[in-house]
């Protein structure tokens, strides 16, 4: 009888332990890393990035936390306005999201900025931070670092005199086979603020210049949000590939001939 009890008890213990192995809900780990904090008086802005603890040349996905008297703001919007100054020259703009809205899941105000140059001893990045247009911290310095995976292409559309800027988002580390191809398109008129281009049609053509062939099964990028277009590029073998991108807006091609292209070192 003692043995029977022991067996029953062991069985209960076994099944109860098995039950405890079920997956417990895990707090999602934030993909954002804090980059910097700016504050003044009672206000504080914390800047986060998905690209690590540094701001990098090219597209940066950003998050901002806002505090007033150490109380976090969870509604409204943030304006983050970066600009670059060169010693002895006028400031110039760079593409950024006009309004950062609060994301309940990410628990911060989210948006992006595209930095078109790195910081150096004669070139300085500054930015303004504003919450709900109620309080603003102006001209705060920050640094932008090189990003080997980033690529950007500028060109002037002769028909409209718009300066277009296309920045690669993905792939930063391309592999043989199908790769997600993602880029963001902006335009600017006479060096004023950049605006997202949401009505473009893109036609990509991967090409391996050293071998003289392209690839099949590519998917032309289509608009997903905020000037961002996403498609697929097929790199059939390792080596250097170009991805030409012919772009039209309102049925008028805005890219030169041959079209602008990104260069990929496929491994």
């Amino acid at each position: 009888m003692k043995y029977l009890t022991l067996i029953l008890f062991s069985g209960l213990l076994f099944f109860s332990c098995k039950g405890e192995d079920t997956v417990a809900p895990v707090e999602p780990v934030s993909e954002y890393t804090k980059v910097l904090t700016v504050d003044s008086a009672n206000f504080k802005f914390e800047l986060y990035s998905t690209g690590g603890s540094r701001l990098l040349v090219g597209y940066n996905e950003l998050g901002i936390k806002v505090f007033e008297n150490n109380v976090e703001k969870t509604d409204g919007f943030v304006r983050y306005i970066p600009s670059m100054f060169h010693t002895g020259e006028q400031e110039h703009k760079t593409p950024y999201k006009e309004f950062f809205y609060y994301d309940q899941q990410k628990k911060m105000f989210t948006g992006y900025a595209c930095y078109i140059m790195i910081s150096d001893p004669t070139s300085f990045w500054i930015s303004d931070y504003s919450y709900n247009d109620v309080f603003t911290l102006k001209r705060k310095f920050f640094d932008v670092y090189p990003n080997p995976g980033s690529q950007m292409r500028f060109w002037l559309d002769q028909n409209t005199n718009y300066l277009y800027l296309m920045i690669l988002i993905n792939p930063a580390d391309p592999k043989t086979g199908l790769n997600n191809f993602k880029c963001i398109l902006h335009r600017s008129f006479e060096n004023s603020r950049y605006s997202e281009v949401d009505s473009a049609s893109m036609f990509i053509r991967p090409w391996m210049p050293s071998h003289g062939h392209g690839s099949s099964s590519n998917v032309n990028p289509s608009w997903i949000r905020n000037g961002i277009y996403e498609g697929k590029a097929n790199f059939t073998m390792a080596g250097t590939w170009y991805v030409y991108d012919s772009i039209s807006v309102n049925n008028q091609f805005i890219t030169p001939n041959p079209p602008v292209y990104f260069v990929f070192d496929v491994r």
Partner: protein
Amino acid sequence: MRKKIIFVFFIFVLCKPVLVSAQVCCGGGVYDVAVLSLNKRALFNFGYKFDNFMGVWDYEKDWRENNNTVYQMIPSLSSAYRFNKQIQAGVLIPFYINKLESPGLPSNGAGIGDIVINGRYEFFHEYGLYKEKGKLKRDESTPYLAATLGFTFPSGTSDESAESEVDITGKGYFTSNLGISVIKTVFKDKLQLGADLSWQHSFEKTYEKYYGEELSQPYTRQQGDRFNYALTVNYLLNYWHSASFSFGGFLMNNYKLDNSEQENTNENAVNFVISYTYYPSEVIRISPLFKWNIFSSGMGKNAPGSYLLGLNIVYYIENLEPDNFR
């Protein structure tokens, strides 16, 4: 036995693979020459190759390994016919079975490849008979020498009309090939040395589509001229067995786009071939082979690298009146 030696060597030449300069998963343009010795009238060959692409050399000659599996299986039929002592011709019909294991992409394709016709004019044969002062003598010094000519028809499916890479079974353009073949027996019935040199010219191709999609701006492309070489040692183990070792490769010029030469697109690679031949009878030959590139930086440029396993089974129709060719 002399005929046998020549026969053996030609058999090796028959199964000698030549690197194809094409993107991975391309087919066609392989100058496998079906060659007959003097005592053979015709041949029929069934060949099979498994060509496994391991990577590619880039324009800086750096070797880059494939992340995915890419290979071709190439069963083929070929035939050759000897018209007289000097002239013979052959035809090769390959069938390509392509495999590409890459997520999101078609993985299988197959089809007839580019058909090759070839011929050769034989200036000299080794150990030819001649008369001197009324006596019949054997020429011990003259090597075998032939001029070779080949032509490839774009009968396969090229990247112009294929739906994806695995559907590619041909280059899509005509190619001509002109060369010489030299053989010299060093030790009679034992050891032969050979050299095959050829110049390959590809004709221009106009692309109006690419992977089946119409192009808004058609363009022309022309592969660069290519020099192929192979040096071979052939060792006769006995009457029924022989082994061969070959070192070969190619050098190819830049290709042209719309008549404009594209810089730094020239290609080259070297390869080694080991072949064994078994003769179960006078009219049947079985010959497996192994070919490989050296998969390291500096051993090629702008070219794919692979190892290849092959097998050729040949049936011969004997020439019942070989003396008519003397």
